[in-house]
């Protein structure tokens, strides 16, 4: 039994009945209820109807409930990616000094977390080539929303148009729309050209009223943008910010955002956590000139009284607890622990490990596309581009039916539309591609 003293109370409140009595008496109360200064008319005396369970019972219940999830091999991506997370990430990040702390309001006693976040920021600086990275946003979609409000602040006088790719994950677009709802920004789309941004169309649409041009590399279809520098130039020529969406693994191989003149980099970390039904961490990096407009938390190096280097949260005058309605963002609790996990994951890969992993994402996708293309009734990849992790395949049979049949065989894939399926392959599921191809061969004809 792990009941401690309070069989009929919280198992995590340590008071013995005698202790409770003594403390009540010390504060001059007869009963716990007397401590609540709540008018009778709004007191709650009912029951929630939530039964208390033992630890063992809760664990069994959740194992059973979550066990209702089908055991499928996933070939799903579109912004949320499964990469093998080394055991060292769990073991170190779960040390309770990290896990059970909060924001580092007292830096002298929280140097460890501050340094880990400083190191995370530094890794993002190396990978993006931009000078400033914050230490986490909620996810890629909210980071994109924050990028738009940053663009609104730094380009407030010049216009109100935000241009995004037509092929943008719908949920990201939706979150972006909500972030700009309180501004006069209007989100408009740029057509696609075989999976990438249509540059001619972009040239037609970008103008002096445009404050932000957003592109992704890789795209939601897994294609690699080949003309990022030209997108950046078009944005720059119109005095708009060039915001690039990507992820840490892609940053290990693809063009460095600084080299294509990106002003802001956003995206999902995609390292450090397994697929977690969409829980992840948002990246945010930008140029030094916008440092005072950056949302979220920043860790800086300073010196302590002993003259040694030490770390602290800095530029807090941007933040909600000081500037209130004039803050750069409302963010307070963020994803710091995921940033810690991501940093440990990146550090455990090292530079060559990260480059290898990224290259695997190219070669595995290429190999799988070739194997899928060889199947009767399937053509892949639909887009004549280089791919990273994922690609779209055309099916003669209705794609939703093929996806449903694959599901019955134990494989989860995404149906893009009537005759298109999308497959995502990483180091995590690369060992199952032969079985997938065999199953697809059966169901696609």
């Amino acid at each position, binding site marked *: 039994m792990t009941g401690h003293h309070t069989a009929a109370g*919280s198992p*995590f409140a340590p*008071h013995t009945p005698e202790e409770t009595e003594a*403390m009540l008496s010390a*504060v001059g*109360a007869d009963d*716990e209820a007397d*401590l*609540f*200064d*709540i008018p009778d008319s709004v*007191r709650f005396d009912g029951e929630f109807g*939530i*039964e*208390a369970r033992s*630890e063992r019972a*809760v664990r069994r219940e959740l*194992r059973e409930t979550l066990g209702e999830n*089908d055991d499928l091999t996933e070939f*799903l991506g579109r912004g*949320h990616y499964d990469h093998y997370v080394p055991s060292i990430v769990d073991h*170190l990040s779960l040390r309770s000094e*990290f896990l*059970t*702390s*909060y924001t580092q309001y*007292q830096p*002298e*006693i*929280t140097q*460890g*977390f501050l340094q880990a976040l400083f*190191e995370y920021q530094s*890794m993002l600086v190396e990978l993006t080539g931009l*000078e400033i990275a914050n230490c986490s946003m909620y*996810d890629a979609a*909210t980071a994109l929303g924050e990028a738009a409000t940053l663009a609104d602040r730094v380009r407030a006088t010049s216009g109100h148009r935000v241009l995004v790719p037509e092929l943008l994950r719908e949920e990201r677009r939706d979150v972006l729309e*909500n972030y700009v709802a309180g501004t006069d920004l209007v989100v408009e789309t740029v057509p696609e050209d075989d999976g990438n941004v249509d540059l001619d169309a972009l040239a037609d649409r970008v103008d002096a009223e445009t404050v932000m041009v957003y592109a992704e590399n890789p795209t939601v279809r897994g294609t690699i943008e080949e003309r990022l520098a030209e997108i950046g130039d078009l944005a720059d020529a119109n005095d708009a910010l060039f915001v690039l969406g990507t992820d840490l693994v892609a940053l290990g191989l693809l063009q*460095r955002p600084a080299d294509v003149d990106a002003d802001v980099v956003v995206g999902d970390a995609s390292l450090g956590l397994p697929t977690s039904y*969409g829980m992840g961490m948002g990246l945010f990096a930008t140029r030094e000139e916008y*440092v005072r407009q950056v949302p979220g938390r920043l860790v800086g190096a*300073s010196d*302590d009284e002993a003259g040694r280097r*030490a770390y602290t949260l800095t*530029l807090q005058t941007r*933040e*909600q607890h000081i500037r209130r309605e004039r803050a750069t963002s*409302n963010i*307070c609790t*963020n*994803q710091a*622990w*995921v940033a810690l996990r991501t940093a440990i994951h990146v550090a455990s890969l*090292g*530079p060559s490990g990260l*480059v290898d992993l990224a290259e695997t994402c*190219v070669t595995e996708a290429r190999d799988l596309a070739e194997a899928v293309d060889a199947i009767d009734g399937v053509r892949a990849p639909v887009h004549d581009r*280089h791919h990273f992790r994922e690609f779209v395949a055309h099916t003669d049979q209705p794609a939703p039916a093929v996806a449903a049949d694959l*599901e019955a065989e134990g494989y*989860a894939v995404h149906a893009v539309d009537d005759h298109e399926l999308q497959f995502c392959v990483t180091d995590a599921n690369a060992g199952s591609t032969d079985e997938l191809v065999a199953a697809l061969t059966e169901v696609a004809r």
Partner: protein
Amino acid sequence: MRFDQARWSDDESEGYEPLLSEKDATEATVDDSPLPDDLTRDSVELPELSEPELARHYTRLSEMNYGVESGPYPLGSCTMKYNPKFTEDVAALPDAAVHPDRSEGTVQGSLELLHGLQDYLARIGGMDAVTLQPPAGAAGEFTGILLAQAYHEANGEGSRHEVIVPESAHGTNFASAALGGYDVVSLPGGDDGRVDLDALEAALSEDTAALMLTNPNTLGLFERDIEQIAEMVHDVGGLLYYDGANLNALLGRARPGDMGFDIMHYNVHKTFATPHGGGGPGAGPVGVVSDLEPFLPTPRVRETEDDTYELFEPDETVGKVHGYQGNWLVLVKAYAYIARLGDPGLRDASAKAVLNANYLGEQIDYEVPYGPYHHEFVASAGDQDAADVAKRMLDYGVHPPTTKWPEIVPEALMTEPTEIENRETLDQLAAAFDAVASEDDDALDAAPERTAARRIDQTSAARNLRLSWQSIEE
């Protein structure tokens, strides 16, 4: 209580534990890539350490960090209470690791859990419907603002452009309302630390979209006039928003829905003891009364007639506030915590949190100017500088209270011991407060002496920005 935090120092002249980049960094070139050169970068330079070296590095960092399991963490308004171990294990169940694009039929377990948590939270808050999508408390506030906006627009009252926020409210309230495009009207507090009804009357108008209220407020005081406040807000057509940051004080004692609140957020990382992780992840589910249910973010989870679960889009949804379903792993932990405690545990948690705050507040020498308070109190450091008091408390092995806020109390020390401390620890805490209260300015100025680092120069950190190891090397 004697306290000395670990301090790892390889080079006495430089700093403490070296940066990863100072230990060993290597450049990997990208010259044999499967892509054309013009699509790739040239190289990547990152730390290159063996697993034992990494294990030692992060273990040393953890030893230079203070968490709830290190000692008392009475950081007001943050509800830093013990995070049960088993909730980590259930969140790590292999079946919890699913992709958000899975079809509904293949993630029935996840949907059932989300549905169950929605139901639990609705009962606890006295609300009609709940969304689990917002990934933090402030994201929940922003969601509430979007809901209020959508509601007023649907009623042809989209011209309401003001949100009223008490001066003592959390800074996120102001920022969330502003993010939604609202003009923020700051509401001065009354002499008793609560909402001043005359000031509220003066602030309310046909421009009012909502009043955002924390109850108990940040002084730990229950807004006794809550029914009248609700009536006043509703009379002008506004909505009443409940900031759930202090819900730990009310579990099983009062429910926002019963008090007249229309929208609320829950900080599951506070009230339901999911770990704060050095600043997150948290989760900020939002509950609403039935009038606002059609506007909730998409997708929602519901049970079908044949006992399965499905996702659906509410008729007039505001859209999305997170790319996927919110901070799923945090939600799993919150479900497990609520299930473990049940009715008696939840009710007892608030009872002991309030008892502990009252007991501690009674013991300390610093003055507590407002009361009666619930789960937290705001003491005044008087002639001492609250920030210095905090630094000195570190030497006693105590994470200090939230300082200098709310500003209504001079040199504020906002203290929330939570239900997890026993009397002995509270007595030690009180002893630490009292020891510091009796010390002179020199002792306070010299603090802290026993933490990993000594007092850190905040001004130089902001003036001479060094935000990466690259900037240190330069």
